């Protein structure tokens, strides 16, 4: 499925060579729309980067898309990182911890399960897969509230585990892993390794995982962003600010803007910092986003 993107490369070059024949007018329209869409997608990010250089007063009194006469980006950053004894850096670290650990475990266990579903024949296999697929269709918000009462009964709420453990389950990851194991790990390779005396777990751990690497990276990234962006789960589970991820922390500050307008600037600069962090991550990892995995998966 991943390799299907190859013919696409040729296709574009074929299409490119035909460009000469096309009228100039429609080219202007197409690129005009693309530029307008680009402005739309950039607008909030550009706004927050500029707003992060302003004083709280200027935030409301100056034109939003241009810098003020006395930019104070550094001062704002210092304020964000020193407010409440530097709680902001704790929130960033928490977010990284939740997202990285949760996504790594999610990747490992969904890869193993997806591989087993693809390569072993056992009773109830399709039933199990259907149940897991059904899990993809359950809105996360439906799970979070009852999960709070369940975890509360075993005393886990308010701890890191309350957010970490549920984040380790990705039914969509199992789905992707199964599709990809079917496509990328040939049965012949498994048989050959068996004849060479390799155990099943060794075959999975050192041969199959390597062949499934593009799918593993996709599962990890998908789950990383899902956990990083999650709000409801930490909102219901956590009560101590030092366990908050960045999303929860920023809304905590946002709720204090009524009391003290100083907090507007903290929210704006904090949002800018966290947006930049993820935008850098997204752009640098862009080539690993194998969306063709998700697309190819529906064809079979």
């Amino acid at each position: 499925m991943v390799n299907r993107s190859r013919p696409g490369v040729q296709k574009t070059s074929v299409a490119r060579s035909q460009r000469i024949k096309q009228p100039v007018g429609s080219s202007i329209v197409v690129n005009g729309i693309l530029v307008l869409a680009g402005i739309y997608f950039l607008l909030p990010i550009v706004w927050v980067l500029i707003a992060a250089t302003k004083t709280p007063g200027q935030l409301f009194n100056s034109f939003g898309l241009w810098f003020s006469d006395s930019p104070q980006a550094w001062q704002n950053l210092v304020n964000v990182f020193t407010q409440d004894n530097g709680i902001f850096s704790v929130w960033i670290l928490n977010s990284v911890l939740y997202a990285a650990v949760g996504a790594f475990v999610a990747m490992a266990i969904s890869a193993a399960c997806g591989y087993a579903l693809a390569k072993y024949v056992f009773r109830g296999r399709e039933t199990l897969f259907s149940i897991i697929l059904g899990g993809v269709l359950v809105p996360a918000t439906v799970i979070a509230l009852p999960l709070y009462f369940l975890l509360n009964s075993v005393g886990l709420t308010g701890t890191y585990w309350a957010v970490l453990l549920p984040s380790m389950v990705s039914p969509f990851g199992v789905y992707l892993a199964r599709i990809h194991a079917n496509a990328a790990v040939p049965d012949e390779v498994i048989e050959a390794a068996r004849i060479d005396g390799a155990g099943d777990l060794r075959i999975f751990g050192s041969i199959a995982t390597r062949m499934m690497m593009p799918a593993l990276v996709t599962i990890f990234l998908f789950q990383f962003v899902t956990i990083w962006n999650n709000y409801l789960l930490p909102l219901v589970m956590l009560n101590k600010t030092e366990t908050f991820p960045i999303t929860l922390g920023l809304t905590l500050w946002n709720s204090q803007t009524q009391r003290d307008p100083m907090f507007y600037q903290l929210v704006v600069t904090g949002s800018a910092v966290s947006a930049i962090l993820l935008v850098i991550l997204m752009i640098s990892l862009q080539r690993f986003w194998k969306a063709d995995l998700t697309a190819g998966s529906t064809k079979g």
Partner: protein
Amino acid sequence: MALTASRPKRRFRPALWVLTLPFVIMFALFFIAPIVYAIVDSLFSTKASGLGFGAPEKVFVFLDNYAAALSNPSFVESLGRLLLFSLIEVPLMVVTALGLALLLESARARWPRFFRVLYFVPYGVPGVIAALLWGFLYIPATSPVLQGLAAVGIDVNPLSSSGVLFAIANIALWGFAGYNMLILIAALNAIPSELYEAARIDGASEWSITWNIKLPLVRPSVILVTVFTIIGTLQLFVEPLVLRPLTTAISSDYTPNLAAYNQSFAQGNPSLAAAMAVIVALIGFVFSFGFLRLVNRKGNRAW
């Protein structure tokens, strides 16, 4: 979908258990158990005992909580609002993502790779932060867009009671259109180039290639994106929660999820909240499967 079984292996393998059990156990604990708990809990109600002394006890009330939820006018209203939101958001999302994918993949696009990354970037911005940012862009004091429009005599208030659903839909569109576009671009890339060449030799126009080749062949991915968007819209919670302090148009039970959250934590009625959550999940299943059935008629299976 690649459901075809690979060739049978040996009957029993301990490795099979080692590979499947970690996920299955976690899935059972953190996915199945909460759902079962919610369903069971929604059939009970916490009642104070006789004279108000002693611990309150759980009483089996069968469907009373569902009746209570569905006879609560503001909850029914929030369900209607959620359906309306889906009606706005799903077509908007699918058309935008598909339109951008087709434009970027057309021969006329100048910097397709650059724009592809640009459109994808908002996916990395958490929904909460996206809502905070758009919140600033929705109030005249801080929004350059509204200020610009006001300067030319157009007064819009995105947070008025008639506009706020669109304001929320815009935040969701901004965040997820780029991701959905990537899925569709990958599907477009998978179409063999011979098809285009053959069509061009036959004298087909770009429009007719788009309409007769590209769209039918990316149909499964369009269906995938639609189902994911339907499920996404049913989760509506964060955006109204963040925008609420900015407008009176958003009540504390604006969406079913907000209502359930309030019943759980503010009103102390988790059983009613569980019933509300189950209702939302049921609507999700009905919508997803209804949609899949609709598009899978005529033996045209996508899933």
